[in-house]
Each structure stands twice: as C-alpha cells, then as structure tokens.
C-alpha cells in the first residue's frame, strides 16, 4: 500500500528534523569547542607566569586569577591529568 500524502509529509518532516538535529549537533559541538578553546587560551594567558613564561603583566593578571582558577581545574581534568600539571600552581 502506498503511503498517503499526509504520511509522506510526516515522514519527510521527521527526516528533516533528524537531519537538522544531526547537522546542528555537529555544529553546536564545533561552536562549543571553539568557545572552549578560546576560554582555555584566555585562562592559560592569565596563568602564563605560573607556567614559567615570563609575563610582564603578571601583576595585573592577579586580579583575574580567581576568575580562571575553576577553569584551570576543569581543564587539566579534561586533558586527562588528575592533578595540576604545574608545579607552581596547584588547584587540587
């Protein structure tokens, strides 16, 4: 039995919905990753002195330190390091 017009339309819509989710999901992932990379970079810039990279602005990064500490902790866990990899900087 051939499906009714309505049925075809419903299936098509369903397929489109699936495709959109698939497509958006991928991009959402990419966007979220881009944002995460950017935020990681920022965190690492703020902590550069602790990583042994002399930073002439390190005095001014102090006031940003409390704002990036959580991210540092989350970052090293995400990178598969159970503890802070920085000798000069322990968050856990």
């Amino acid at each position, binding site marked *: 039995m051939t499906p009714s017009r309505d049925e075809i339309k419903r299936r098509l819509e369903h397929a489109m919905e699936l495709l959109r989710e698939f497509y958006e999901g991928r991009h*959402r992932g990419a966007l*979220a990753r881009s944002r*995460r990379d950017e935020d990681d970079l*920022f965190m690492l*810039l703020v902590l550069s002195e602790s990583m042994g990279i002399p930073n002439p*602005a390190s005095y001014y990064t102090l006031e940003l330190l*409390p704002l990036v500490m959580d991210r540092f*902790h989350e970052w090293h866990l995400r990178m598969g390091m159970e503890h802070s990899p920085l000798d000069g*900087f322990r968050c856990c």
Partner: protein
Amino acid sequence: MTRSVFPGSLLASDGPRILFVGGKGGVGKTTTASALALELARAGRRCLLVSTDPAHSLGDIFGVELTATPRKLRGGLHALELDPDRQVVRYLDQVRENMQGLVRPAMYHEIERQLELSRQAPGAVEAATMDRISQLMADTVRRPRGEGDWDVLVFDTAPTGHTLRLLSLPEIMAAWTDGLLRTRQRSDAWGRALERLSGGRAAEAPGEGDELSYIDQVEEGGGHQDARSRRIREVLLERRRKFTRARRLLLDPAVTAFIWVLIPEKLPILESEKAIRTLDEHRVPVAGMVVNRVLPRGDLGAFLESRRAQEEEYLARIRKHFSRIPRIQVPLLARDVEGMETLEQVGRILMGGERGSPPPG
C-alpha cells in the same frame, strides 16, 4: 620673562599640571624637581612634589623625613615619597576581597600562595609605582586648578632606565589588555552563535546580583559562565580604561611636561640622546632641558680653564643634538644643593631671574 616659552611656560596660569623631571643618575633631577616645585609654590600654585625613585633622596634635600603621605614643606608645597611595597600590599588585599564568592574555599589556599609569590615577582613594584602615579595624575587633572588638592604635580624620577620603563608601561599594558579582551570577544562570539543555533536556549544570563552563586558546576554555556565572562570583561575594561587614561595624560603636552636634566659630560650626553629618542618614539612630550653644573664664568684658574675648554665641546654637542629642545643652563655651585635657601637660588636661576645663569645656549 615670557611665559609662553620654556621655562616660563611652566609657571604660566595655563601651564602644564604634571611635570616629570628625568635624567641619568646623579645629574641633578632631585635638585631640579625641588627647585621647580618651590618656584611653582612661590607663583601661587599648590604643588605636590613626588619622588618615584625607589632610592628616595627627596627628604634629604629638604632635610626632613618623608613618607607616602603628603607632608607640608611650606605654604603651597607638599611632598611625598612613593611606597610601592605598601601599594602592592593594598592591591593584593583588594584581590583577596574580590575573590570572596568567586572561588571555592578549597582554592583559597592556593590563591593566597600565588598572591604571596607575586609580591616578590619582578615588575610588581614598577607596576604598583605606575598605578600610584596614574592615580595621582588622574585625581589632579580631574578638578580644575584651584579646586582639587593640587594644582601641579612634580615628579622627581629615578635614573633613566627605570623611568623610561615606567612611562612605557601604560602603552604595553594596554596592548596586553586588548589582546586578552580580543580572546574574550571571540569566546563571546562563539557563545552567541551557539545561542542562535540552539534557538536562544543558552541565552539566559542570570540577573545582576545573583552572579556566580552556583559556582561549583563548571559547564559550557551555562548562565554562570556568562556571569563570569562578564566579570572578566569588566575587570579588563577597567584596567584598560586606567592604562589609556594614564597614557592620554602622559602624551598631552597641554597637561604633561617632561623635563630632561643632563650635565655637559660625555656619558650623560650619550645616554640623553638615546633617552630622548625613546621618549620621542613613545611620543612623550619633552618640554625642555636643564643643562646642569656648567662651570661658572669668571677666572677659574688654569686647571679649570682647561676643563672649561673641554666642556665647551660638550656644550656645542648638546646645542647641536638637542637643537629642537629649549634648554636652560644652571652653573656648578660652590656647594651641594641642600635646604630651602640654596634650592630657591637654583629655582631663580632656572627661571632666568638671576645673573650667573648663562643665557640659553
């Protein structure tokens, strides 16, 4: 004395409100700054004389003990010696205070350790010094002459290198905050794209006030993430505002006059040539030069006459190399400059009001 040209311009009623006196070690910066400040006070300006040299000697020249709090030296003239260590401690206290509610208490210990470490970090003292200078400059120019605490600030600075680094700080640091702000902007742009894709689901930001109350869960795109981003941006923008303000004031010839002191000797001249080039590069306006310790006229005897011949060569070199910059000469005095009276004498010489000052060369 015309008031539109250096050095009379310094005393004009619409003269610069911020003076920096710089030069190589030992050439007479403290002497010049003090004498100028006395002249300004005599002209009716309420003047604050500030030593930025970590090896302070400003108090010595007046024979008094100075601290980071202004001390009255005479009517219209106060002085202080910056205390960058105290400044650093204050800044760290503020960071500590701001971190309450931002950081899990488990992290307090590490932050405390970082703060302690950074107290001795290179650059901290300079940054703190520049912060204080910027603050003083901003507080002074915010109010019209006659209304604020001070009409004019006179900075007695440390020898060349230190001061040049100090003056370049706002520019370098502004570039640094801009770099950080750009990564924030990119992060925000990704965040916005993400919101559009998700039909605005990640768009909710918490209202003001309840920022960062749920700090323990770290999750991309969450509302607290936005609040944290906003706070970071605020901190950075406030910093940048301060750097650009300092820079604007430093570079404005209507506000700031940099006075360069040198002596007619080989190394000070070489160093001055380099320093003036650097100041030019940073577009810091050099208002004039003081050529200090020039051998006085009159019969000096054979030995000093031969010195004078040598000095004449150096003076010629100064004339040639710094032809664009107005100069005044101050003769070598028979004794060290100490105490109000001698300083007043130097002040009069500087302003061209006393004979014995050779004409501008």
